């Protein structure tokens, strides 16, 4: 049996006490296409960062476990070392210089040069570029990928799909390339481009290059993989040859969690069937979370969960309706049309928003807890002001109000005058929620409220959302953590590629959620 190109054994990694990888093993044989699948946050990126010796790993105390390349034990302390060992990577974001030609990009920092009189004196930095040879190499690499584009075309202006190929061409041009890591390469490609792409991958594998392919699209996995590894919550849940799996099984293994049904909160109130928020054809231009026309009805008094993988647009919904990103479409709130791109109107109508970007949008970090809690209400509802023409702020009332919420929400702080920056993530989130409560909203959007906060604060935050809901507030709860959605939502809508994939009840099987998130329709889900 041949020695595997890559073997990772017992890899564990913790960031500041949070375990993100637990004892993961991964083996890639020569010429194999190995697919790595898992939800966001399953640890795929961390694993790749370890493989690549990224500074983010070395700066946080390294990792446990062993890494073998061709049976030789290695530990990379920089991406450069990884590249020298024959590992190439194509990132999700393109790393190309738009003003340079295809050839120049492919050969960047590995230019072929000829000696000249100046370089003889001043050293090799001044050698002349060997453009002819560079172009020839680039052509060879492009041909291997079946690309017909001109090697002298500037990169700026090439279709997005082509950029991906140029990146791969750059990697395969490296003579010692043995393992190519592709991180969600098809996310930006159209369907036909993606097909072509998969063809190229297969061809590369046949030529002896091993490929580690990270993707969310399970169809692609089934189309190209030789072997599949599934990660979940930093643990390896399953690995084996493709033939052992079906799409449903992969989906189930990816999202499956022992949902403790007992932890589901008992509800005293029943949501009505009355539609309070009607969304038709909403398009939101939020970079990285674009919504491409979504239709959705929110019922009065419910907690609607909004799920889906990162980058598919679930976060765009609240941001669009609240007017933070340019949007189009029709939104009816309580039967009346809600003007879009108008934050003030949304706030006045009784909508409130707890942003997924807590530190960037949710808080004024340099301001006090008290001010953060009341600011939005003061500005949009004229509350916490002294009577009179000057509209002076009522400090006493503000402090009283803040103290009440610090007590009620259990915000750990030195007092209402403390600067919010000094609080922990969980307590900052409670301040955000306190601000939303203070607005006395009729409908609340909460996005990713538990991201980056500790377990104790997490459950308190979820409790608070339920409490608010019990008071009659309709809640649209967006989260990347399915378990969370299932623990408090009445219904869960899954967003896929900017559109609604379908609704599921919180007690639907794991496989249904997994398939919807991977782009299958509800009918297909039901058929399985």
């Amino acid at each position, binding site marked *: 049996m041949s020695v595997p190109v890559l073997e990772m054994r017992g890899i564990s990694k913790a960031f500041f006490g949070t375990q993100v990888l637990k004892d993961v093993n991964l083996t890639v044989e020569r010429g194999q296409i190995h697919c790595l699948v898992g939800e966001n946050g399953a640890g795929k990126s961390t694993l790749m960062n370890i493989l690549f010796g990224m500074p983010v790993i070395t700066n946080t105390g390294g990792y446990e476990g062993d890494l073998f390349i061709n049976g030789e034990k290695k530990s990379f302390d920089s991406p450069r070392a990884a590249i020298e060992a024959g590992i190439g990577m194509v990132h999700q974001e393109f790393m190309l210089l738009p003003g340079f030609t295809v050839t120049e990009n492919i050969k960047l920092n590995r230019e072929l040069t000829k000696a000249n009189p100046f370089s003889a004196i001043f050293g090799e930095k001044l050698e002349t570029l060997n453009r002819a040879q560079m172009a020839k190499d680039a052509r060879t690499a492009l041909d291997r990928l079946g690309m017909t584009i001109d090697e002298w075309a500037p990169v700026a202006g090439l279709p997005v799909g082509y950029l991906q190929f140029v990146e791969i061409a750059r990697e395969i041009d490296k003579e010692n390339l043995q393992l190519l890591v592709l991180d969600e390469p098809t996310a930006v490609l159209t369907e036909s481009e993606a097909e072509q792409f998969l063809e190229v991958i297969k061809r590369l594998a046949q030529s002896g290059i091993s490929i580690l392919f990270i993707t969310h699209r399970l169809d692609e996995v089934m189309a190209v993989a030789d072997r599949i590894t599934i990660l979940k919550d930093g643990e390896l849940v399953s690995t084996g040859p493709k033939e052992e799996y079906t799409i449903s099984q992969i989906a189930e293994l990816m999202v499956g969690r022992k949902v403790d049904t007992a932890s589901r909160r008992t509800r005293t109130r029943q949501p009505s069937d009355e539609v309070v928020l009607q969304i038709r054809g909403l398009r939101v231009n939020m970079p990285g979370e674009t919504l491409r026309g979504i239709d959705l009805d929110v019922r009065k008094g419910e907690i609607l969960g909004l799920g889906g993988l990162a980058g598919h647009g679930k976060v765009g919904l609240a941001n669009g309706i609240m007017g933070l990103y340019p949007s189009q479409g029709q939104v009816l709130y309580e039967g009346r049309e809600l003007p879009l791109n108008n934050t003030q109107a949304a706030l006045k109508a009784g909508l409130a928003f707890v942003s997924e970007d807590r530190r960037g949008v949710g808080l004024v970090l340099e301001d006090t807890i008290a001010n953060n809690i009341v600011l939005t209400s003061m*500005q949009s509802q004229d509350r916490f002001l002294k009577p009179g023409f000057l509209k002076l702020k009522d400090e006493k009332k503000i402090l009283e109000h803040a103290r009440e919420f610090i007590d009620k929400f259990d915000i750990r702080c030195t007092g209402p005058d403390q*600067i919010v920056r000094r609080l922990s993530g969980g307590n900052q989130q409670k301040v955000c929620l306190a601000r939303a409560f203070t607005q006395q909203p009729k409908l609340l959007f909460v996005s990713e409220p538990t991201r980056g906060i500790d377990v104790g604060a997490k459950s308190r935050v979820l409790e608070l959302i339920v409490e608010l809901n019990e008071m009659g507030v309709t809640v649209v709860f967006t989260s990347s953590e399915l378990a969370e959605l299932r623990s408090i939502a009445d219904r869960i809508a899954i967003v896929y590629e900017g559109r609604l994939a379908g609704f599921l009840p919180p007690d639907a099987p794991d496989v249904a959620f997994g398939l919807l998130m991977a782009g299958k329709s509800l009918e297909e889900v039901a058929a399985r």
Partner: protein
Amino acid sequence: MKERLTAIYHTIGLPRLIIAGFLLLLLIIASGTELSVAGLLSDALVRIGQNGIYVLAMVPSIQAGVGLNFGLPVGVICGIVGALVAMEFNLIGFTGLLTALLLAIPLAVGAGFLYALLLNRVAGQEMMVGTYVGFSVVAGMCIFWLLAPFRNPAMIWPVGGVGLRTTLTLADTFGGTLNDFLQFEIFGLTVPTGLLLFYALIVTLVWLFFKTKAGVALEVVGRNPRFAAASGLSLTKYRTLGIIMSTVLAAIGYVTYAQSFGFVQLYNGPLMTAFPAVAGVLIGGASTREAKVSHAILGVILFQTLLTVAMPVTNQLIEGNISEIARVIVSNGMILYALTRATGGEQA
């Protein structure tokens, strides 16, 4: 007791304690020479009142997120025009002063609005653009001073009779009106009561503004524009308000300054007005992102006292005009120091 001392130390900050200590040292040295300490302090009081409003003008622009208002001359020019009109009609005393103010303020609102239109288009570059706007406005107005239709013979060039002179005296109109109002002497120290009262009035108005809904909104826009947008606040509106306030304060500041100084200086006179004001607010503990009214007060007191005391004292000790060089080093050094660090406020 110790805790309270540390608390006080943290609010005032090390740089200001050092400056205050240095000031004290200078005063002790001065008492050993033939200089009159009371005289030095009297000068300092006048200069504090004279420059206080300029320094205060930095607060609204910093709080609105526009940064230090290096375009202070935009407002100063409006103040000059107000003062010139009052002189043209020979308005004396408070009539002259109030006329100058009443003309200067609406002009400054207009000029500030236009200035804001520009600054809102160059978000992130406001301080750099502002500096050059200030320089350009001063240069452009040089032409205006030559062509302006003023006819008062005390103001125009005596020979030829076209264009305004470079330096006009206010002695016959409203020079010293505020300084002399309720002025009194105590232990040889002359207190310009009217000037200080007027400064206190403006300070109170600005302080009060930051307690209002609009003032709070302006601060939120400056501290976190994205939060402000999510709270339904218009960034453009409040940035514009901050810039207009700063410009209006500059105009008021000029009229106050001119009546105390006793002269109106035209042409390149207002070119560098922004720099001592910027240095003042920074010495007071402000940063390019956070400034309180208290920073402006503390800053003008420290900076102007330092200048008035340091100059004569160093002249006594060292031959030659070293003190002017020291002044330039201190004020520009302070600006440089503040611009190189982004944090401020409580970390300062």
